[in-house]
């Protein structure tokens, strides 16, 4: 058998495929795509991605509470309810506060093979970036 003959026969293979209805296939595929796009907004993130976020939020709340407590002890006047900050974002924390948040997470900073970097070596921006990356 030569190559030409083999290719001629190969073109006849898979005739069972002729039974597949393109219209029915189009309907089924579009229905599945629609069903999937309707489900997408309600899809929840997997639990393993949620847990670190909860821990970071809890740690940030603790730091915020500590900062507030220290300021209240220090300050001569007690602020009114309207003046109390209701939330502290990571960008508002000082380097040592960010460090304490990381410590509370038991997080070990990644160490490069050639240049070891400890948490203490990071500046405020780097610590903020690290915490934000942990938030997911």
């Amino acid at each position: 058998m030569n190559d030409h003959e083999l290719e001629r026969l190969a073109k006849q293979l898979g005739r069972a495929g002729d039974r597949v209805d393109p219209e029915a296939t189009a309907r089924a595929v579009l229905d599945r795509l629609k069903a999937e796009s309707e489900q997408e907004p309600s899809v929840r993130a997997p639990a393993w991605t949620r847990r670190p976020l909860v821990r970071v939020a809890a740690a940030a709340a603790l730091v915020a509470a500590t900062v507030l407590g220290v300021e209240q002890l220090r300050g001569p006047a007690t602020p009114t309810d309207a003046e109390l900050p209701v939330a502290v974002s990571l960008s508002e924390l000082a380097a040592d506060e960010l460090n304490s948040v990381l410590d509370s997470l038991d997080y070990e900073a990644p160490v490069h093979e050639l240049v070891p970097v400890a948490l203490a070596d990071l500046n405020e921006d780097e610590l903020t970036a690290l915490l934000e990356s942990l938030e997911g």
Partner: protein
Amino acid sequence: MTVPEPAGPADDAQLIAAWRAGDEVAAAELVRRHTPPLARFLAASGAREDLDDLVQETLFRAFRKIESFRGTASFSTWLMAIGSNALKDLRRRAKGRTVVPLDDRELEAEDGDPHSLALERDLLRRLEAAVKKLPPMQRDVFLMRAQQGAEYGEIAEALETSVGAARVHYHQAVKRLKAKLK
């Protein structure tokens, strides 16, 4: 539900761009256009009673990851590569199931005297069985090239290999098939 019809003929690239922008009419036209060759490819690769589901699964996967289609391979060849992976997944899940025997109607030659028809049918049956026994890469390259008429360049692109490797796989496949059909 009726599937929307496009206003006029468009090439694959235009339809893909329209689908990326959310046009369902374009998606339906792509499915209509590519279902027959894809179904033949999958049937020749060994899909049987699950063929309808496999064709749908392949097209569904393709539309979901349409952003990764770069247009360097033809859409048709790209679909076949996705279909081949879907078939592999299906076989992995269905390991141990009984094999459905070949249907004579699938192998029927259309014209000719009874003796030639019988010979042709026998050859096709043996070829079909031999193709299914090829290593997956050789089978995909052989079918894309010999059954679908794709160029080596687009086969290599779709199967994420080099043109040289695609040529080697094709020639290895031809050598094995000829040996089986002697």
